[in-house]
């Protein structure tokens, strides 16, 4: 025990003796471990264990699948719910949630707020305490006691300014007066991000509502019950419903999946996986650096070890001493790694917002992670201490005793191993840099995407008038006409267009002249001055826009997008071609009168679908109604005027949200840009560590070969010869590393190809950029020791030797 204490004391002294090397080693390890721990914490909170609940692995989500379209519904129908409530042997807890909204009179308009109506046991499922107040008490949610509301943190902050006295207050909504009983913590946002409140209520008894599948369902399986058993039960129910009530149930199945998967799309999984790989590479680079540093340090101590050996120390004793020192270094590095983890988590939380990667609980370090860090640190200490220690202890003691430190040259195997480590870290850095390069290229291409219109000085808003007052379509048309007139007459407004969106609508089946059938989307469009396509600046490829004469005309006309024309193979001259909408009553023919360019209305990487346009006047109430405004002035400056005109026209209108299209399109690239930033950060850290490694190994090599350099100079070598030889020595390993790195990139990049936009993993520009950057930075790292070698003074050096 005493000797171990002595080893520890001696180890500390050796680390303090060489503070520069110790600091670099600690920093390297801290970055490697810290970056990994931070990402791991993130992955854990987002993917692996996102639910703030006890025995979260027993929680599942149950929802219907429309097998014909492959679309999942929000939940299941009431008869299924009733049946599942009977199955106590499978489920211990069932929680139902449903979209819900309430309205209240705001300053100008009626404000609509979205939340969830949930079963009274909703909060029992979670192991999370409200930030303020309480959740639902026993009995609340039953008829007569359903006037309580729990607020989300964001809504509490935005509407009530974070006022704690809100608890107990009764808020008047148009639908009901609700008493605030609690406020949830900021991260808790179930079932989706942006939710404002939860109110308790029993779901209605609707024994025949087979077609209504909007009751979201989360369940806790009984201990020991598996997903397969649950799925078998759901299959049986779905099959029975399909047989007994085929109209609403044929083609539907009911599926179960772990509840945690609600929050992790394939995109999120791939993004986090690739980030984990990236920081894993950083850890490997850090480890290679550490190994080389320990090699160098142990090499310098070869004589000391030989002396100790001559004084009676056995190999195991020497190994223990060296290992003690490595473990000490690793523990110090690991401790700093905890700091890096803490900062990393903070940075990631800021960098990756909730709406990109939702999580229900805060991302934090826990004791498990602390233990993992400690184990990782000690493992690194043992792993990277053992090899250099073994190399040091197997040397010829007599030889080491005779020679001076600077003359003891590393053996060939040790040197090859050291070079191999540099090659591997350069290769890993190339993969990271290439990944970052590909992401940059992808984001640049995404930002350069032509949306099919001019998004500058364009504002869009969706209108939600009190629909009950506008069941008469003529009244709706009059409202829109009035709105068009008022907004068009505002100073600074160039044009105003009206349309209805196809978002959320079921596609229609259409047939082409050759019988080809394609699922297409229907959008409403204003005619004449109200044409939103014209206001947006959409490109008219052929024919004409819809006109007043097309409204209600016998001969039905449509404008289609280019994609639809291609899908029906209408050729060079699609105008005048007849397409048919397939209905139960037979085909209805439409004549193509115009073709417009494909529009990316909402996101730049929007998937283009076949779309046709009809006058909005012919489209019944239902599809979302929007207005676009092209301004001649800065869009923000005109929003108040637009809002005031709307208020004058229809005070009962829900508060409009004005969306500046250019900003909205830019924001749609948010996840790509965030991922790009993460990759750039990883690549920068990886490159920094790799360059440190290249510099370290070469500087060490030069320092040990001072005598050789002095002799060469004494024999007539010019400084340029020394520099050339040294630079070549360093560049040789770098070039080999680059070659291996590029191979690795080709192999690995298929995993991130799906995260890229119109960029292939073999895109030469980003790869070339990565290589040039690495060679440039590496050359500087090599140049410094090379210059030092060239400046060796042979007289001083040889006299010293």
């Amino acid at each position: 025990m005493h000797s171990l204490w002595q080893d520890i004391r001696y180890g500390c002294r050796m680390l303090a003796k060489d503070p520069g090397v110790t600091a670099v080693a600690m920093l390297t390890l801290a970055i490697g471990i810290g970056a990994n721990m931070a990402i791991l914490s993130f992955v854990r909170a987002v993917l692996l264990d996102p639910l703030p609940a006890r025995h979260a692995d027993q929680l599942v989500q149950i929802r219907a699948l429309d097998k014909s379209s492959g679309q999942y519904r929000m939940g299941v129908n009431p008869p299924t719910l009733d049946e599942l409530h009977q199955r106590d042997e499978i489920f211990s807890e069932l929680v139902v949630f449903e979209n819900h909204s309430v309205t209240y009179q705001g300053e100008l308009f009626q404000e609509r707020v979205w939340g969830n109506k949930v079963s009274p046991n909703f909060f029992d499922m979670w192991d999370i305490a409200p930030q303020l107040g309480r959740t639902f008490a026993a009995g609340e949610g039953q008829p007569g006691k359903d006037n309580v509301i729990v607020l989300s943190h964001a809504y509490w902050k935005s509407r009530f300014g974070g006022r704690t006295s809100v608890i107990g207050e009764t808020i008047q909504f148009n639908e009901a007066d609700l008493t605030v009983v609690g406020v949830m913590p900021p991260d808790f946002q179930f079932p989706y991000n942006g939710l404002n409140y939860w109110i308790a209520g029993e779901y209605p008894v609707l024994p025949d509502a087979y077609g209504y599948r909007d009751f979201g369902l989360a369940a806790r399986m009984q201990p020991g019950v598996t997903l397969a058993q649950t799925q078998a039960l759901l299959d049986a129910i779905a099959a029975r419903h399909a047989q007994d009530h085929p109209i609403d149930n044929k083609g539907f199945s009911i599926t179960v999946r772990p509840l945690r998967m609600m929050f992790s799309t394939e995109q999120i999984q791939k993004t986090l996986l690739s980030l984990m790989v990236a920081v894993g590479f950083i850890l490997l680079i850090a480890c290679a650096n550490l190994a080389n540093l320990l090699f160098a340090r142990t090499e310098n101590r070869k004589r000391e070890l030989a002396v100790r050996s001559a004084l009676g120390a056995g190999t195991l004793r020497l190994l223990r001493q060296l290992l003690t020192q490595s473990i000490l270094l690793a523990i110090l590095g690991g401790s700093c790694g905890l700091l890096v983890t803490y900062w990393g988590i903070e940075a990631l939380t800021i960098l990756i917002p909730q709406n990109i990667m939702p999580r229900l609980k805060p991302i934090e370090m826990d004791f498990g992670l602390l233990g993992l860090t400690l184990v990782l640190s000690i493992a690194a200490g043992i792993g990277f201490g053992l090899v250099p220690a073994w190399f040091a202890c197997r040397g010829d003691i007599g030889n080491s005793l005779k020679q001076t430190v600077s003359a003891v040259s590393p053996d060939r195997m040790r040197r090859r191993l050291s070079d191999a480590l540099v090659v591997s870290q350069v290769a890993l850095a190339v993969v990271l840099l290439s990944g970052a390069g590909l992401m940059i290229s992808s984001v640049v291409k995404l930002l350069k995407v032509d949306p099919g219109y001019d998004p500058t000085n364009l504002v869009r808003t969706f209108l939600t008038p009190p629909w009950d007052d506008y069941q008469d379509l003529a009244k709706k048309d009059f409202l829109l006409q009035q709105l068009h007139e008022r907004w068009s007459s505002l100073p600074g407004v160039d044009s105003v267009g009206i349309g209805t969106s196809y978002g959320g609508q079921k596609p229609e089946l259409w047939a082409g002249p050759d019988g080809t059938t394609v699922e297409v989307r229907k959008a409403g469009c204003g005619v004449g001055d109200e044409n939103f396509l014209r206001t947006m600046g959409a490109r008219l490829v052929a024919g004409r826009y819809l006109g007043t004469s097309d409204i209600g005309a016998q001969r039905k006309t449509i404008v289609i997008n280019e994609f639809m024309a291609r899908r029906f193979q209408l050729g060079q001259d699609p105008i005048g071609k007849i397409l048919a909408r397939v209905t139960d009553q037979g085909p209805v023919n439409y004549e193509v009168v115009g073709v417009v360019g494909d529009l990316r209305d909402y996101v730049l990487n929007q998937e283009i679908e076949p779309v046709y346009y009809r006058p909005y006047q012919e489209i019944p109430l239902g599809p979302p109604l929007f207005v676009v405004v092209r301004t001649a002035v800065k869009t923000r400056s005109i929003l108040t005027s637009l809002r005031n005109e709307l208020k004058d026209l229809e005070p009962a209108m829900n508060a409009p949200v004005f969306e500046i299209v250019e900003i909205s399109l830019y924001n749609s690239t948010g996840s790509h840009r965030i991922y790009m930033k993460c990759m750039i950060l990883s690549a920068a850290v990886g490159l920094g560590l790799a360059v440190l490694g290249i510099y370290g190994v070469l500087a060490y090599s030069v320092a040990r070969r001072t005598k050789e350099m002095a002799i060469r100079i004494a024999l007539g070598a010019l400084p340029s010869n020394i520099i050339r030889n040294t630079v070549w020595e360093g560049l040789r390993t770098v070039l080999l590393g680059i070659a291996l790195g590029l191979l690795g990139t080709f192999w690995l990049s298929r995993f991130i190809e799906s995260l890229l936009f119109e960029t292939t993993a073999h895109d030469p520009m980003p790869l070339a950029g990565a290589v040039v950057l690495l060679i440039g930075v590496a050359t500087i790292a090599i140049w410094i020791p090379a210059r030092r070698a060239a400046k060796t003074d042979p007289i001083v050096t040889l006299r010293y030797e």
Partner: protein
Amino acid sequence: MIQLKNIEKCYETRAGRTYVLRQITLDIEEGEFITVMGPSAAGKTTLLNILGMLDSDWTGEYHLFDQAVHTLKPKQRLALNKQHIGFVFQNFNLLDTLTVYENLDVPLSYRNIKASERAAMVCDTLDRFGIVGKKDLFPSQLSGGQQQLVGVARAVIAGPTLLLADEPTGNLHSSQGEAIMDLFKKLNREGTTIIQVTHSERYASYGKRIIKLADGWLDGEICLTETARKDG
């Protein structure tokens, strides 16, 4: 005490086999003070390393106190080394980051001796060698002679019966060298067998016998009379 029979050591090189020691056969009695001499590359240090069991790659027979070293496993050789041998180096080989006290403690720490006993032994040795005042100094704070004094103290602290010294005065000036040789003489008188390597005829005269090596071969032996030794 020591019997060497046909000891040979060689290196395999591209040019073929290069011998460092050839057929060395030698007997050394307990209490002797032997000097190994010879030109550079004669194999002096190699012989010393073999005797000190720092080198295990050789052929022949080596008996130390009736123990057949050539048949022992590395662990057993290490145990024998710890029990009998102390080493003094030309370049002192003190551990730079340890104080004088800690340098003396190092060999004891490898010998399973209780900490309290070790402290007593170190203090006793410091006192015996007159370096108590230097105990907290680091090697870089000592003169060459003082460093070698510590080196000798470290070599004998565990009570070796055989002290091997490889050019112990090589890096010292004459007065420091003589002090070290006087110390060796005193240790020899107290019963320690000493084998030293030196180039100096004068320091060789402190011993009882000179063994000459040339090109790895034993090149003769000279037994020194008391007179010759006195004459130096």
